[in-house]
């Protein structure tokens, strides 16, 4: 165990810092629209081997040998410098790894470069009204007619579908095959006639998600990744990446820091709330969870690094439930600190910033948002089943179907 960085990595960090002096841009470049500036700087990052390190050069990546510690140093330094790095879009984050694993040559060449360049936005078409935690029961249908897929049905919880050029998603192409075996992974241009996006309003009043309706929408037969009926397996690849995104302790650390600020700012019996014995206990208790997630994440990081994933298999499965519960603890505590101001609703400003503000109304928004993760990507009950069954070898639930 050694939390110090090796000489090589210390060097590397210095080089990265040096490079980051180039951001923000200066001179004439600084006059360009911000998207353009980001594109320019991202390109430079690729040249230096800091951006899209896992993607082959031919597809617009920098194709660097795997070094998780360098990856982390880059993440940290770019974050501090607020400099543009790998896009965290669904396209760059979820589709690209999937295509690299399952896509054919043509698909890789066609989709990866514009996606990485941020010129092509993607949305994810998985969930359906009838298929939440039981995703494999999805019904949205794609029928092959000649050289076209004809798509009918509905997707839901499609975030940023308004801004997306393309959707990657799961569709039932083999109605007669068994549940999982009847699903294919298709790529759909959002401007296809018969594709309609309707924003979905949340109880908080904001609009983050959408419904997408398909009515005889026709796409080329070639827009399938891997073979017919392999969609479920292909999508697993994406889910792994997604799970890791959710487990990350960064969000918790940030939220906890905000919570401490809130506790210092709010008053209780005329004194700062943070001086209240009960509040101190509660904050210190929450810190126990936050630091557990931080250190457990370090442990998982090292295990991955050493190729000993198996050693941290259980904590990894638990990341999602753990972070969801911890976020809820933080938000409930914040809501109690807000106290009487809980009668107010969030303002539009709070909605725009997703409540990432420290206004009391922003916290109230967070209090409602914090239920999101418990729901998004499989309810906690499903996660608990997975932990019980895969983590501890307990039997599966009895099913009517069994």
């Amino acid at each position, binding site marked *: 165990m050694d939390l110090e960085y090796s000489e090589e990595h210390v060097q590397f960090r210095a080089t990265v810092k040096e490079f980051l002096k180039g951001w923000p841009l200066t001179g004439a470049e600084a006059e360009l629209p911000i998207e353009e500036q980001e594109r320019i700087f991202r390109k430079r990052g690729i040249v230096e081997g800091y951006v899209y390190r896992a993607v082959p050069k031919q597809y617009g990546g920098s194709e660097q040998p795997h070094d998780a510690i360098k990856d982390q140093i880059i993440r940290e330094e770019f974050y501090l410098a607020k400099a543009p790095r790998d896009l965290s879009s669904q396209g760059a984050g979820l589709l690209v790894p999937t295509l690299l694993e399952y896509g054919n040559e043509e698909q890789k060449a066609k989709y990866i470069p514009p996606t990485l360049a941020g010129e092509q936005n993607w949305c994810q078409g998985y969930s359906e009204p009838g298929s939440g935690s039981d995703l494999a029961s999805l019904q949205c249908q794609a029928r092959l007619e000649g050289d076209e897929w004809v798509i009918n049905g509905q997707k839901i919880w499609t975030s940023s579908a308004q801004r997306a050029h393309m959707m990657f998603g799961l569709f039932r192409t083999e109605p007669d095959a068994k549940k999982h075996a009847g699903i294919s992974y298709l790529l759909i241009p959002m401007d296809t006639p018969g594709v309609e996006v309707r924003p979905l309003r949340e*109880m908080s009043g904001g609009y983050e998600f959408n419904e997408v309706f398909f009515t005889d929408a026709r796409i080329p037969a070639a827009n399938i990744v891997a073979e017919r009926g392999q969609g479920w397996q292909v999508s697993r690849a994406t889910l792994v990446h997604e799970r890791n995104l959710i487990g990350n302790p960064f969000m918790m650390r940030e939220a906890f820091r905000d919570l401490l600020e809130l506790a210092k700012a709010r008053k209780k019996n005329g004194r700062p709330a943070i001086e209240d014995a009960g509040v101190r206990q509660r904050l210190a208790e929450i810190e126990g969870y936050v630091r557990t997630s931080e250190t457990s994440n370090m442990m998982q990081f090292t295990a991955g690094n050493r190729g000993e994933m198996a050693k941290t298999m259980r904590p990894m499965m638990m990341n999602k439930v753990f972070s969801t519960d911890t976020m809820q603890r933080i938000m409930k505590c914040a809501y109690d600190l807000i106290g*009487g101001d809980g*009668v107010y609703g969030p303002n539009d400003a709070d909605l725009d910033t997703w409540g990432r503000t420290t206004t009391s109304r922003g916290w109230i928004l967070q209090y409602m948002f914090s*239920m*999101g993760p418990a729901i998004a990507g499989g309810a906690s009950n499903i996660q608990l089943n997975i932990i019980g069954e895969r983590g501890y070898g307990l039997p599966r639930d009895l099913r009517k179907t069994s």
Partner: protein
Amino acid sequence: MDFGLSEEQDMLQETIRGFAQNECPTTRLRELFDAGEGHDPKLWEALVEMGVAGLTVPEEFGGAGMELLDLALVAEVLGEAAMPGPFLGHALATLGVQICGDAGQQKAILPALASGEHIATLAIQEGENVFAPGDWTVKAEGDRISGKKAIVSHASLADCFLVGLAGGKLAWVDTKADGITIEDANGIDRTRPISTVTFDGTPAEILADSDGNAARLNEAAAILLAADTFGAATKLIDLNVAYALSREQFGQPIAQFQAIKHTIARMGTDIEPARALFWFAAHAFDHLQDESERTASVVKAHITDRAMHAARESVELHGGYGFTWECEVQMWFKRIMFNRSFLGTPEQHRERAAQLGGW
């Protein structure tokens, strides 16, 4: 020795429940909720017809001469329906006049409230820590008042305000009078919109309150809020049951999964027995005044806290759908949020109970 409702009380609840189901079903509630005005004249007029506006007003002034318990039973049913409208503020303002007005003032004010000619509302809270009579800051000079009140529900709709003054007295104010500014405060609960109201040399009738009883108004408010919350929570349980029975995953209704079944059972165990708790608080207000203040605090804290927990569980039980604007759950969720925070949070009421308990 009998701790149950009278037939009249059962009938009162059934009447209003039936009315709510017919005139304010979820579909209608949804329209009103989305519109966000928090009021429907037809609904309120019908309630007035049923005598709700003057339920506690002495018969001599045109009321039904009933007690807080009866008012709480109405609040429960309105909470069940999440019915928009000025009931809460009107009922409390009316009670305030009964408690603190002298004979002449009652004679002058109450009839119009009982008949529904006037809608009144309550203007006593000024901030999250300022709602008890001892903390009020609105100044009175002669018969004119100046200062600011937050969280006044249906302020623009009301004809009169009952305003808490520095020193703990109450003032009766015509909302059309001079020097009144009303600002919408964007409340969380769209069934009962709130405003900030500023008074600047506004003419007012100061209620006599010879015995300094204004604090009783806060007790009554805590009890009615608890009753409304209890009703809302029982409705959420019904919604959960219906959803769990109809929603299928893995080829069976989710109600069949123990995790879901037990969530509902625990929620019920948290909520159902508390019916007796708000009954008792109201009964104590009416007949056991020594216990009343402390009981009201314990009860408001307990019921609003348990209901808020149940509301979060309800959203999660409804999965992604529960998170949407479309899902009914949010209408009760936000009503409970308001009830929990208005006129003293669970934490504030518990600390109060501790003090009154001599802890």
